[in-house]
């Protein structure tokens, strides 16, 4: 009789523990959804910022922009080319 009573107590205790455990777990999970959502929002924000910065970088390194800036600071096109040939000697012996 005592044994049966003991087993019943364990079973009821186990059922209560599992029920409480599940409630705690579900509570934790349901609230962490908010954190995950916030983290995702942050990732999305960084992605957007990354895209905006890439756009700025591309615009700044475009040839159109470089040419415009080079003209402003005084660079001009080289009209005559000078070629230094490596095959000839620098000075001919007398």
């Amino acid at each position, binding site marked *: 009789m005592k044994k049966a009573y003991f087993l019943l107590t364990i079973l009821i205790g186990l059922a209560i523990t599992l029920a409480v455990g599940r409630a705690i777990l579900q509570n934790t*999970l*349901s609230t*962490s*959804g*908010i954190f*995950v*959502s916030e983290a995702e929002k942050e990732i999305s924000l960084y992605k*957007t910022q990354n*895209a*905006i910065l*890439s*756009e700025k970088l*591309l*615009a700044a*390194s*475009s*040839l*159109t922009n470089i040419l415009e800036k080079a003209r402003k600071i005084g660079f001009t096109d080289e009209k005559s*080319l000078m*070629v230094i*040939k490596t095959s000839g000697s620098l000075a001919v012996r007398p």
Partner: protein
Amino acid sequence: MKWRYPFVFAILVFLFGLIISRLFYWQVVKAEMLTELAQSQYNDLKKITPKRGEIKTSDGFSIVANKVSYLLYANPKQVKNQNQMIQAFSSLLEIEKASVSAQLTLDKVWVPIKSGIDAEKKEEIEKMELPGVGFEERYARFYPEASIAAHLVGFVGRNEAGEDKGYVGIEAFYDRLLKGKEGYSAELKDALGRPIIAERTLVASGLDGNNLILGLDRSIQFLAEQKLKEGVERYGATGGMVGIMEPKTGNIIAMASAPTFSPEKYWEYDESLYTNPFITSTYEPGSTFKPMVMASALDAGLITPLTKCNICDGPAIVSGYDLHTWNDKYYKDTNMIEVIQHSDNIGMVFVAQKLGVDRMISYLTKFGIGELTGIDLQGEIAPSLKPRSAWYAVDLATTGFGQGISVTPIELLSAFSVFANEGKLLQPRVVTAFESPDGEVHEIPVKVKGTPISEKTAKVMTEILANAVEKGEAKWAQLKGYRIAGKTGTASIPVKGHYDPNKTIASFIGFAPVDNPKFIMLVILDKPTTSIYAADTAAPLFFSIARDLLNYYNVPPSE
């Protein structure tokens, strides 16, 4: 007393019946509708829009990228001060007050105000803290080099379903590869609208588009566009084209056309400007076609460079038609080297007659004339060669000097590259590789289409063309110290069965350096007015670009 029990029992049964029938109505009859309603309340289905692939030049620079843009929308029911909002939007976003007002008076909870807003404008609007206003993030095409290579890359517009779609050029040809695949994710929310992590599911996974890597050299493209613009203005032409290819790979390293359009604001331009004339316009190539005919006769062993022309002492009469040279000068017993040097039409009639119709058709087909080159751009056309039965003696004669036959610029560039590539004909290509979203690069192999002429013939023809540059009509414009093989072409424009004497298509095609060609280039000017001749217009423009290209490739002068 006895009747009371059955009476109460009957009432209870009736009430239970009512409840059961009502439950049956909601849970069985209306089950589907209620399920949808419940799902719409707690299930948030999100569309994952794939990022369209970028288009990069050979140096890895994205000439077509994606930028973040925003769609501004409003909820008219939450707007408190309509006048303030109309005033703010119309001045800040440069839109009509009437258009904002019309949207805000609609009996809806979501109305679009303006799309394509950049991040700075978005911030300015957010600072105003206007109630009932929101933004939807989107990606739009961004062109860091503005309208560079517009005809080549094409543009992205919207189809009937409102989805992004590539039109003309690379954007159209590689649309499926660029656009990627849409995905969907569902998020379960609680009664307060907070997301529940355990129930988050990915309904369908999406995939970003592939990046395309072109053989296009950004610096050369930039240079070609600038020089073409200057050339069109200087020679009073209505338009022009420049195509530059790497002979050993078939890679298009630059392709420019004028007039052009801006892919970012394509709707502001006439639709006729969208097509790439380098692959869609046909014209009679004139003298630039002579090398193909001459090389065919040389390859067939019908002539040698020193063969003398025995009909070159005056105009030729073929089937009753008088055929003249371009300047009415005639050279008795001239040889084949001089025929190309003087761009002698009668000399080419001699060569064409030696070749005959069958061999002419056979060789031109081997050179790819009359067929699509297979370039990876949308919209390429190729006028077919006439059927054998439609070739008359005069057709054979005029084809010898490039009249009475039509080609596209890309067809000519591709055929001419055979001389610079040991007799091999390659398929021209724009995209050399594509990069999948995981960063893996897939190379596209070079395709050899055939060998129209032998390596020896190609070398002989190259020397004949180098001589033409050195001693021909355009010798005044040539670059000192460099050996360039090339040919001028002044093609008359057929109008109502005749050729217009004052309107021409001036062109120059050539490659350099002769010993190890780095590039082959075709320059075309449409109806130049300062002079109708290519030697005075297209040739100097060609040499001006060639000079900068040789410098860019670090090729020193040989003399």
